[in-house]
């Protein structure tokens, strides 16, 4: 029977070029009309250490890795054992490797996978300028049934600068690789791709966040690099410039958030991106944005914590910090994309909300979404853009920056507006903005800052709510994908499970949540933390169904669809 999804790992030591090969394989699948995903794993070496390209190709959009690998293609075994825990395999899997590189390590033998020897080195040597990764590419393409044609085109494009000789040599090596694998009696029969005349997109979660930002209207970005958020900023640098915006590299995260706030005070929608340690440094200034009601968006691409933690691996453990990491009562927005592609929408929405509600919005992405590259449908255009309620010169008479209004939003004068000059302040203030320690002013402004968030109509976007049933999963962020897949699989077996994947993490909307809970008797909460941050947060604020279980685990190992399915098995 043809399969709808195949998963392959290309692994090898530094210099083997598995990432390049993996990238071409994914691109080729995209050209052929498939969806897919590629994640990366690498050892501690800064550069040139062992690495693995984790590739999934599918007939349907996918946003996370599958339970098991169909194929591990190991160019060599140096350091590859380090990835063992990330590479579950079984008797239906195949390990393709070069006997000249030594025996298959015992922990891989123990999986029961079939071993298929290919002399990568020898085949590569047979072509002038041939490289082992291209051999591997040919082997992989053949075994999963991807056509070689698009691969050749992609190679030509990639090696344009290196000239026709290099192009030909690579093409020949791919062909030789495919031929060398002809004798292997293991194949995946991938179902044909869905028909479509709209081309798919090839985008990483971090690029998607960048795109969402500019779609939303961001035109100022302050940047300080940090793994795994740097690519948000690196994508923005040239593209923002092309769009007439400005990106400035700051001296540290405290500077970048304050720069963004300064720019936004000037009327320009502004953003910065970081990861946990950087967010920690930004919290003081985020409080300032909230108190002074200056819109700003912070993308936090989460990694393993605490402290420096595990910078290259994913975790959802900045949730507490994003929601609660500020001193004083500082209501603000926290939103989370529910898939790689959704990084576009959610970031764009965050810009819209921050601007409309004149507050700070934190977008919680993570390493898994951010640094994975996916083949997806083009994210739809939506109307959410930055549209700030500004004061105009005709409001100058008695202008009060922090006027108490029905919906809590008051017109903000931007520099250049005659007559509306005021001083924005992080000190508690009266309606005019003058510092005040009067209890009534404090209470009023606290109410204002909270109520404007609570009174806003977030529509359906507060969560992805899918399906129906007495059993539901409540999850968020990159945990959504494995949950969605588990639910799909159960659905295929006729079992109904509802999915609630929260996009609006804060403020919580108790009524909307209660509505989503209607009819739900058993709830499974799924999150990638050690302490169950999401669960405790929800329990502290809303009423949960009678039966609640929590599936949680810290990074770096992802939670896989099968685990979710197993967990649900007792309930459906």
């Amino acid at each position, binding site marked *: 029977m043809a399969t709808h999804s195949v998963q392959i790992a290309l692994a090898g030591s530094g210099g083997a070029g598995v990432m390049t090969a993996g990238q071409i394989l994914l691109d080729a699948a995209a*050209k052929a009309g498939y969806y897919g995903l590629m994640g990366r794993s690498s050892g501690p070496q800064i550069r040139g250490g062992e690495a693995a390209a984790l590739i999934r190709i599918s007939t349907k959009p996918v946003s996370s890795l599958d339970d098991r690998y169909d194929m591990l293609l190991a160019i060599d075994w140096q350091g590859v054992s380090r990835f063992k825990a990330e590479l579950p395999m079984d008797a239906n899997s195949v390990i393709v490797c070069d006997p000249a590189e030594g025996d298959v390590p015992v922990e891989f033998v123990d999986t029961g996978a079939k071993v298929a020897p290919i002399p990568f080195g020898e085949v590569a040597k047979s072509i002038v300028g041939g490289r082992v990764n291209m051999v591997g590419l040919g082997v992989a393409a053949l075994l999963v049934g991807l056509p070689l044609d698009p691969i050749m085109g992609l190679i030509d494009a990639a090696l344009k600068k290196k000239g026709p000789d290099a192009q030909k040599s690579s093409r020949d090596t791919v062909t030789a690789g495919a031929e060398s694998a002809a004798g292997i009696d293991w194949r995946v029969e991938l179902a044909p791709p869905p028909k479509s005349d709209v081309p798919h997109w090839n985008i990483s979660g971090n690029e998607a966040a960048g*795109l969402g930002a500019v779609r939303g209207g961001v035109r*100022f970005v302050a940047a300080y690099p940090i793994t795994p958020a740097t690519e948000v900023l690196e994508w923005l640098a040239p593209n923002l410039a092309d769009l007439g915006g400005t990106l*400035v590299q700051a001296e540290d995260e405290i500077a970048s958030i304050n720069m963004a706030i300064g720019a936004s005070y000037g009327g320009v929608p502004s953003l910065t991106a970081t990861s946990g340690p950087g967010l920690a440094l930004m919290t003081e200034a985020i409080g300032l944005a909230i108190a002074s009601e200056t819109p700003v968006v912070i993308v936090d691409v989460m990694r393993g914590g605490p402290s420096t933690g595990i910078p290259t691996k994913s975790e959802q453990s900045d949730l507490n910090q994003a929601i609660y990491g500020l001193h004083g009562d500082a209501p603000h927005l926290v939103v989370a994309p529910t898939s790689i592609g959704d990084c576009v929408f959610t970031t764009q929405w965050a810009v819209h909300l921050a601007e409309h509600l004149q507050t700070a919005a934190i977008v919680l992405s993570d390493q898994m979404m951010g640094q994975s590259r996916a083949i997806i449908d083009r994210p739809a255009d939506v109307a959410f853009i930055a549209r700030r309620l500004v004061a105009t010169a005709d409001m100058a008479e008695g202008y009060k920056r922090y006027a108490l209004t029905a919906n809590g939003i008051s017109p903000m004068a931007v520099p250049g507006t005659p007559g509306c000059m005021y001083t924005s302040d992080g000190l508690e203030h009266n309606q005019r903005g003058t510092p005040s320690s009067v209890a009534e002013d404090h209470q009023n402004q606290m109410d204002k800052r909270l109520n404007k968030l609570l009174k806003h109509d977030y529509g359906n976007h507060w969560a992805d709510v899918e399906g129906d049933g007495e059993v539901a999963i409540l999850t968020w962020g990159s945990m959504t994908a494995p949950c969605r897949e588990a639910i799909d699989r159960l659905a295929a077996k006729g079992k109904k499970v509802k999915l609630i994947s929260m996009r609006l993490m804060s403020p919580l909307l108790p009524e909307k949540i209660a509505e989503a809970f209607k009819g739900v008797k058993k709830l499974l909460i799924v999150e990638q933390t050690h302490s169950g941050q999401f669960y405790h947060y929800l329990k502290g604020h809303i009423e949960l169904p009678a039966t609640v279980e929590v599936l949680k685990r810290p990074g770096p190992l992802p939670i896989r669809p099968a685990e979710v399915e197993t967990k649900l098995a007792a309930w459906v």
Partner: protein
Amino acid sequence: MTAVTKNYSAKDYKSDIKPVWCPGCGDYSVLSSMTKALAELQIPPENCAVVSGIGCSSRLPAYTNVYGYHGVHGRALAAAAGLKLARPDITVIATGGDGDGLSIGGNHFLHACRRNVDMTYVLMDNQVYGMTKGQASPTTAPDWCGSKLTPQGSGVTAIQPLHLALSCGANFVARGFSGDPNHVAQLIAEAIQHPGFSFVQVLSPCVTFRSEQRGWKDTVERGKLAAATSSDEAFAILAKDNGMQTGVLYAGDRKPFNPSQPAVKDLDAVERKFVA
């Protein structure tokens, strides 16, 4: 912006909010000098913004009638740079105290000098943390024992703000004394007009926690800071400076940092790159 015909006087730049400052605080004069400078330059109030951190001196923006941003402690220069880069049409002045700017804010000072964004920084130096009731700042002499936190003196050599500014690449460097408000006004006006990052240190007494600074009016050497033609010469001048000479020390010609450019693409063109 279109040409302005209105004629502004200094008081057009003052708000009606009563300062929290102690009677006799040097910062009153600095406020006056700043409004005088703006009047001299006839900058429409709405086209100017004053950005500050936290401290007595950092309260200044609310007492002006231009756009103001009273941010968090030590980050005025970062916020001001963001504002200027996003809104090159606005005249941006950052301001605050020696603690705000050189202690917690030292890193932003260092990088503001080298980044050279076209803005002006007016630092009110009273060699003390006034707002928190009198602790040593980076410009406090190591043997000042007036702070409960360092009753034996800080024991740490004071920073020379002008030297540091020059070393980090500031494009305009001057020192004034709040007791000479017209001179300070002139320095601020020059600083605003000078392209790039301009730094004006204003000796501004804290009469409450450093009452001996009332004596500055007698020790300041007015206009004695020679104008250097090169930064090397400026360093040579500073080698003989006692910290009480006022004047313009240095005016350089580095190009201001301004990466913003008009759009060359629309969103569609940007998005096309994602097509697989």
